[in-house]
């Protein structure tokens, strides 16, 4: 393992922002095989933690000679230490989102320069894995997401062994994300969503580690038999899937609140529900009186769940994968 400072940004009154990368199987003849990127935002603690687990595991596997020679791996656990250290999600100065700045511009504004500097180190890798989070606050069933750019090889996502692969048609705002731009510039890029964002969830973190190792093994970056390791054992709560379900984001069913108030969910990501099942109760915040019961509009699985004890009216309580959502043609 080689720990390198990829680039720095100077500031006044704080130490320079130093973005670190951890390289494995590096050498003069090594081909850039897989880049794994963690927290681009300051609240992506789970994503950084997953990277730390991966770094520890890869360091051990490298020492044991179980990494394929000549297949370089880069892990960037955290781009945005500046924001993470002060509890901000976006860039600490102007609240811009680095993950809306790619491919970046080295003569532009600060976050454009940061994006450009990171992107320069990621370009040329054959595969990219971005551990990322959603724009709505909530928890997910662990899954892989990929942008429909016309360059994606969707069947490669099966290599993570996660139960769902969600295909998304990029909106204009999405064309500035890391995943989209890696894809467009020739890297097969996948976004990996863990359950949580701002706090560590051990089980789903280890599930994500297991998924990345499975992908590395299938892509020949780990030597055979190296993916099954004690740090990431099989977990009945998050079973491996040899044939993940591919679905389009548009097939997800959104369950909205009608009223605002104290929010009591009865279900969580991964739960199986049937049409009409009670999913949550919204209560008056002062009297406790019930204002609304939220029911499942379809049978399927809970994919995303609102996080927090308060909810506004017309907000997303859940997103569900209805039973009819599977689309074999997407694979």
């Amino acid at each position, binding site marked *: 393992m080689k720990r390198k400072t990829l680039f720095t940004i100077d500031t006044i009154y704080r130490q320079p922002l130093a973005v670190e990368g951890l390289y494995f199987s590096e050498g003069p003849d090594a081909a850039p095989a897989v880049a794994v990127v963690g927290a681009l935002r300051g609240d992506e603690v789970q994503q950084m933690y997953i990277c730390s687990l991966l770094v520890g595991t890869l360091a051990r596997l490298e020492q044991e000679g179980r990494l394929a020679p000549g297949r370089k791996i880069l892990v960037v656990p955290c781009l945005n230490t500046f924001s993470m250290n002060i509890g901000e999600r976006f860039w600490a100065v102007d609240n811009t989102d680095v993950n809306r700045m790619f491919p970046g511009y080295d003569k532009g504004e600060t976050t454009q320069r940061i994006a450009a500097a990171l992107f320069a180190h990621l370009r040329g890798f054959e595969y990219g894995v971005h551990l990322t989070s959603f724009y709505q606050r909530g928890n997910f069933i662990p899954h892989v997401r990929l942008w429909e750019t016309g360059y994606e090889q969707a069947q490669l996502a099966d290599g993570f062994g996660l139960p769902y692969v969600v295909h998304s048609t990029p909106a204009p705002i999405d064309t500035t994300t890391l995943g989209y731009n890696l894809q467009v510039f020739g890297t097969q890029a996948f976004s990996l969503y863990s359950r949580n964002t701002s706090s560590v969830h051990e089980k789903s973190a280890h599930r994500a580690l297991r998924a990345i190792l499975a992908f590395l093994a299938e892509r020949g970056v780990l030597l055979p038999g190296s993916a099954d390791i004690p740090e990431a054992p099989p977990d009945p709560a998050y079973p491996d899937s040899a044939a993940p379900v591919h679905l389009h984001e548009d097939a997800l069913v959104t369950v909205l609140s009608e*009223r605002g108030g104290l929010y009591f969910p009865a279900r969580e990501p991964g739960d199986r529900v049937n049409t009409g099942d009670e999913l949550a109760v919204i209560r008056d*915040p002062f009297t406790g009186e019930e204002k609304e019961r939220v029911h499942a509009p379809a049978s399927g699985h809970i994919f995303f769940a609102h996080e927090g004890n308060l909810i506004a009216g017309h907000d997303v309580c859940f997103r569900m994968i209805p039973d009819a959502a599977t689309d074999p043609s997407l694979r």
Partner: protein
Amino acid sequence: MIETVFSVELAVGETLLLQKNRISGGSASRRVCVVTGTHGDELEGQYVAYRLAAELRARPELLDGIVDIYPAINPLGINSIHRSSPLSDLDMNRLFPGNRDGNTTEAFIDAVVRDIAGADVCIDIHASNIFLTELPQVRINENAAAELVPRARRLNMPIIWVHSNATVLESTLAYSLNALSTPTLVVEMGVGMRVTPAFGEHLVLGILHLMDHMGMWGEKIHITPATVVGQDRRVAFLNAESSGIFIAETRVGQDVKAGDRIGYIADPVRGELIETVAAPVDGLLFTIREYPVVYEGSLMARILESRG
């Protein structure tokens, strides 16, 4: 008349409202929409909303048509000094056209678009951000320039900046409304968290002038011709190459010569001047940094290059 366009219950004892002030007169059905407050830290449009409504109320006999004023597209942000929507921490001007079936913010935005769509013209007023002061200007996507520049010339703004299309800007209010055949002009002026009445007065006159041209306002108003910035006029961007404290030595609206000092970047810890910021071209300084803390890359000024 104050109308509620959209309302939704917040979690605890409050309702989020999208309000507009509809002022109508005469018999014409032509409609002008004036929109502001999409970014909660931009307040220049508050003055325009107030002054325009006051003008229209003071002389109702001159009005023939409908003026809808939306003073706060991001009411929670304006009330809490948040640029983005506090409900989602997302820039509302990157979420258009919204989504009726989406979350609270997306549904709110959908209601904005539905209510304005079909107007004869919409003016979307912004105030830069807390970092930069802008000379009043109309910004127009090059794809819509042919239709919008003639209208923009009537707004009494010194600069009309026709910029290239960026995909990300397709998520703005202006792009969404223009795509729905509702001509929408974006005004940028002043600086965030402040009100500059002189700029506001220019725009109020300009809106009345535009309305006069549309047959909606019975008074002749004289305005200052604008400079159109397009492919024939280059804009020079001055970005910081050092981090420190930027001290501006010029104001927007000044003509500068190549080599003129715009300002400098200081290091207060060491007591050193670390970067002198000079104009790279002759021209009109129309953007200057207001917030002194700069990082490498921070924009400090923009200059509209003189015709060569």
